[in-house]
């Protein structure tokens, strides 16, 4: 009995091994070229394909033509944001991203149609396109417009904590974008998926945002688009900093920023954070002309004591908000412990856009540059049209108009909040 089962088990094992083995990564140039594709080789191959006198496929001659036209006939070596180098031998036509920040840039560069798989926060929550907390799609134009067939229908390749390697291998990606928090998994992922893994993502410095934008652009050979996106972001930022840079330091508003909101009170033991979590660096706040009261904290991402916040005595408190039912601002305004704070006494506690979404959403943090400026200096930014600017910003990343309007409709505070 056991003897007769052995071949079957062996076959099953072989089949399983075959199914989950890494896809063969392209490690050579098209047309079997070594070192460099010449114009004559590409032209002969293309013409032969068009005339039907060779057996080449459109995939093969297109890859060759792309490498010749875009990369000068040579493989392209790119360096990710951790300094890891990788060589691409064929154009990147099948992309997997494992967090929304990289998905957003792929879409911004017009390559949304090349996404073949992504993470649950890109395709199953509102990190790229607006979605309610209950999972209801809120801006259908966005969900349908950023990738053919709908963003929510992409293959799911990782949840919040675990990659689905079997799924990733089956999708035969040319390149995987991995966010910085998973940096230590990159080399293992290369081995298991059989494709180059490009680690990239921003933190809360603007330099890292532009570095991320340019790095992903280079990996996708969309350097021009990346430069344009950076120029666009700079133009929006200058609308604010041209004014705030002229404000004398001693006249600037002192701000306590709660990037994790206050939905669960001062501190949520489960997540290890809430109102008392803050950052010493948040570029939108700096650019909006706020003096971050936590700027001298040694740790960039830190939980502080309530007593410390009271001692800082900020002029304004900004509380991040990601859902319409978030009563964090009301909680803070009513908290007996905080009543001595100037911001509480003057009622200057406001919601702002949540700066996290399984990463640091570039579009929403750019919104905060403008929105925080309006809050901190309402007289200087009275003419700032958030609706128009917000939609321009979201369109620059997602290519769909009206996403800000939909997001503001969902959150409600951008519409209702009195500044």
């Amino acid at each position, binding site marked *: 009995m056991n003897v007769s089962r052995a071949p079957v088990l062996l076959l099953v094992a072989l089949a399983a091994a075959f199914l989950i083995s890494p896809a063969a990564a392209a490690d050579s140039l098209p047309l079997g070229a070594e070192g460099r594709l010449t114009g004559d080789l*590409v032209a002969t191959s293309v013409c032969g394909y068009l*005339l*039907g006198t060779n057996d080449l496929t459109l995939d093969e*001659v297109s890859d060759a033509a792309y490498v*010749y*036209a875009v990369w000068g006939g040579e493989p392209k070596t790119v360096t990710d944001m951790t300094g890891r180098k990788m060589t691409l031998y064929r154009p990147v036509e099948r992309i997997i991203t494992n967090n929304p920040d990289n998905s957003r840039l792929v879409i911004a560069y017009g390559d949304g149609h090349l996404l073949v798989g992504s993470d649950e926060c890109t395709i199953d929550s509102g990190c790229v396109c607006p979605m309610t907390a209950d999972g209801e799609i809120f801006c259908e134009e966005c969900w349908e417009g950023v990738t053919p067939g709908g963003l929510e229908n992409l293959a799911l390749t990782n949840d919040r904590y675990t990659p689905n390697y079997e799924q990733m291998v089956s999708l035969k990606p040319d390149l995987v974008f991995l966010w910085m928090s998973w940096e230590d998994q990159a080399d293992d992922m290369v081995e298991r998926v059989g494709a180059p893994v490009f680690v990239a993502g921003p933190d809360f410095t603007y330099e890292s945002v532009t570095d991320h934008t340019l790095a992903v652009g280079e990996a996708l050979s969309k350097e021009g688009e990346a430069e344009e996106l950076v120029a666009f972001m700079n133009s929006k930022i200058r609308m604010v900093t041209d004014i705030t840079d002229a404000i004398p330091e001693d006249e600037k508003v002192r701000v306590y920023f709660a990037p994790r909101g206050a939905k669960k009170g001062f501190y949520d033991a489960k997540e290890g954070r809430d109102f008392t979590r803050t950052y010493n660096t948040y570029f939108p706040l700096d650019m909006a002309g706020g003096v971050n009261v936590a700027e001298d904290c040694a740790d960039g991402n830190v939980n502080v004591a309530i007593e410390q916040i009271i001692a800082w005595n900020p002029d304004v408190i900004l509380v991040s908000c990601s859902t319409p039912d978030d009563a964090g601002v009301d909680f803070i305004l009513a908290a007996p412990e905080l009543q001595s704070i100037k911001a509480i006494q003057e009622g200057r506690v406001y919601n702002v856009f949540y700066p996290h979404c399984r990463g640091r959403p570039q579009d929403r943090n750019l919104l905060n540059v403008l929105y925080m400026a309006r809050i901190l200096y309402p007289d200087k930014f009275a003419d700032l049209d958030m609706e128009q600017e917000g939609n321009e910003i979201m369109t620059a990343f997602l290519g769909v108009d009206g996403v800000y309007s939909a997001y503001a409709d969902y959150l409600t505070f951008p519409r209702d909040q009195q500044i």
Partner: protein
Amino acid sequence: MKTAIHRTGLILAALLIFHVCCILPAAAAPIVQREVAPSGGAVTVTYTIDAEEPFAIGIVESVPEGWTFAETDNAISAAPHFEIDRDGRKIAFFVCDEKEVSYTLTGTGDGIQGFVTEWVDLCELSPDLKEGKGRWNTLGASSVSSVNLQQETQAQKSPGFGICAALLGCALGAGAIALRQRTGGDEA
């Protein structure tokens, strides 16, 4: 008088929107146009490519009976990359970052009737693992006249959005005029 001026202004605005939308490309996709210049018993066929560099295009043209390629390649085209299948009556070009390529052949006719031109954007990226000819574009067919060919070529310049936006512009303009007529314009 004022109403007439306003109406004229609205019409001009609608025409302007129509014109702008007509020349607005739907995307940065390449556009290939074919022009023919007859000269005695020969014609010169010129392909003009409107695309952002870098680009790579493949063009193949089927030539009808009655037309003959010259015996040497130099007499046919100065393009750097082309190939001829004399038995199959076809000529193919690989065009990389060149805005124009042309070739000459002898025969009788207008250089349009019976010619079939297909082209493909070789730098278009697609996640499909096995692509067929779905990406190929056809410029003209034997049955179309010279005028029709030009119209078809023109249509490929701004597929989709441009025309829709132009029609929308016209509709808005017409709607505004109709509304003003119904309400009596500014004076109402």
